[in-house]
């Protein structure tokens, strides 16, 4: 099984690069949206999946990226590529600002505070002049590579595909480093992690900031792809849909989260005609998932090689006492 993993992943990436030449423009758009969600869910996966912090305002970071790029490109005429590091910086700062007060909160309070922050960001975007108030910012220029101006549907598909691949690799590598493990230790048992010499405050903030940067990356590209952005794209419902994708796929699981992103976007397209039912179906499926399969469609394995019949394996090893 394991030996086929690399070649099949490689094949999948090749397919993703060929796909736009086979699809009509409608499905290409859907697929582009799926890739946006792949990036967003990978970012949220760090916060919720790895570190176990429920964030209900994640769309705020998507907004920070989109607005930073939009404002810098329209008002200050910056090049798209130069806006990216600024957007990352702002997103990381926003992550720390939102993260700091929530550090000592219990998980349910944390959820509501992040929700509150998410709403505050939306209200700011709706009311400030620099963000174009309720109508948002339009006429965002197209990005250029040298003299080539990216304008076609395919250009943006490839751009977001590359970013999606980068973010998957980044999240995978982080997950297999001492930083990623520390996040998981915090999720599993905060006090024990602290006792093992892990500074939970520092690492939680790092988790927020890293997740925020990935979210803002998607936001920046979203701004130039749509060439117009408005507060509506960054609502609570957006945060919930991203969270839904992560939960459906499997918290902490990279392939699971990719599948979750695809489901959340493609499913409603298949349910056309009953569009009104979309969010109802999502709501009900969240409840059903949590009751019957809380680990998600493709759960993470945490590298364990457990056999099911452990109890019977060596009976004389120890007496287990439940305390």
């Amino acid at each position, binding site marked *: 099984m394991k030996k086929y993993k690399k070649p099949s992943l490689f094949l999948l990436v090749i397919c993703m690069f060929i796909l736009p030449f086979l699809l009509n423009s409608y499905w290409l758009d859907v697929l582009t949206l799926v890739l946006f969600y792949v990036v967003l869910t990978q970012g949220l996966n760090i916060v919720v999946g790895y570190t176990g912090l429920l964030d209900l305002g994640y769309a705020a970071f998507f907004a920070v990226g989109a607005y930073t790029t939009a404002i810098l490109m329209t008002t200050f005429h910056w090049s798209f590529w130069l806006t990216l590091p600024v957007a990352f910086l702002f997103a990381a700062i926003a992550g720390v600002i939102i993260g700091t007060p929530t550090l000592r909160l*219990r998980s349910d309070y944390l959820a509501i505070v992040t929700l509150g922050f998410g*709403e505050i960001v939306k*209200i700011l975007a709706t009311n400030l002049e620099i963000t174009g108030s309720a109508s948002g910012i339009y006429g965002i220029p197209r990005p250029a590579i040298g003299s080539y101006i990216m304008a076609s549907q395919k250009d943006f598909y490839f751009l977001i595909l590359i970013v999606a691949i980068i973010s998957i690799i980044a999240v995978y590598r982080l997950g297999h480093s001492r930083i990623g493990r520390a996040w998981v230790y915090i999720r599993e048992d905060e006090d024990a992690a602290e006792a093992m010499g892990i500074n939970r405050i520092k690492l939680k903030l790092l988790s927020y900031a890293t997740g925020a940067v990935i979210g803002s990356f998607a936001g920046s590209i979203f701004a130039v792809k749509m060439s117009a952005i408005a507060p509506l794209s960054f609502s609570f419902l957006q945060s919930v849909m991203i969270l839904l994708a992560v*939960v459906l796929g499997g918290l902490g699981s990279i392939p699971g989260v990719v599948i979750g992103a695809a489901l959340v976007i493609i499913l409603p397209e298949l349910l056309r005609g009953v569009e*009104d*039912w*979309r969010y109802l179906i999502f709501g009900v499926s969240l409840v059903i998932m*949590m009751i019957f399969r*809380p680990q998600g469609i493709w759960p993470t394995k945490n590298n364990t090689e457990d056999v099911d019949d452990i109890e019977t394996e060596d009976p004389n090893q120890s007496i287990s006492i439940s305390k």
Partner: protein
Amino acid sequence: MEIFFQVLIDGLVIGAFYSLIALGYTMVYGIIKLLNFAHGDLYMIGAFVGFTLLSLFTGDGGVNTGILGLGVVFIGTMIIVGFLGMGIERIAYRPLLLAPRLSILITAIGVSLSLEYSSMIGWGASYKVYPIKLPNDGIQLLGTQISFAQMGMIVLSALLMLGLRLFIDKTIYGKAMRAIALDQTACSLMGVNVHRIIALTFFIGAFLAAGAGIMSGIYYGTINFLMGFTIGLKAFTAAVLGGIGNITGAMLGGLVLGILEAFGTFYMGGSWKDVLAFGILILFLVFKPTGILGAKEMERM
């Protein structure tokens, strides 16, 4: 000075709504430590069920509904929504009582989405005009016009809260609730039917929220399937303000928040009032999570 009292009265009415909804949050949180995200939507369902009942009752759009008819609509709606609250607990939350907190929170979000969008399918996405018009006349007090409707709502809210206070303090069920909040395991060992008391708590929470729902429908004149989201969040703010799990605190928190918000709106304009409420929420959760009336917790590093 007149303006001051006018704003104060507005704040009191809105605050009463917040209080009624906050009670449901605080009771459920107190008893099973669940942040019931869907609670604000029960308020919305209350407004819609009241809307339907009013329309059915009178056939003429409810304009001529008398006080008696209105009373029947209120009680009918509150009972229906109360049972809905119980049903939600039974189906969605009870199987997860022992699950990780993250799971049950996500479930609550799922329930909230389900309630909102099934209402959208059932009643439509557009704003509905409430089929009742209350007389605008009232009395002059300290140079301020207070309508009978406003007075009625404040009085009704006060009665409901008083009733709840008596129920919790005087009845065996209230005693059981307080006991479960302290130690669920001990209660079931002592023969208290814990599930039934939890169900009852959900019933009462939904019952009160539905009352607030109809009142706000009448007060504002229009309703919408998303009306429960923001107000739910604010009612939660009120519950936190008063000290979550604390009944009197929730009542007080709602009124304080309503009045603060009314003055905030007056001085800063309507578009910023939500920022004020969420700002208060965040400040309290971070610096005084036990609220105004809450006890001090042990210091940990």
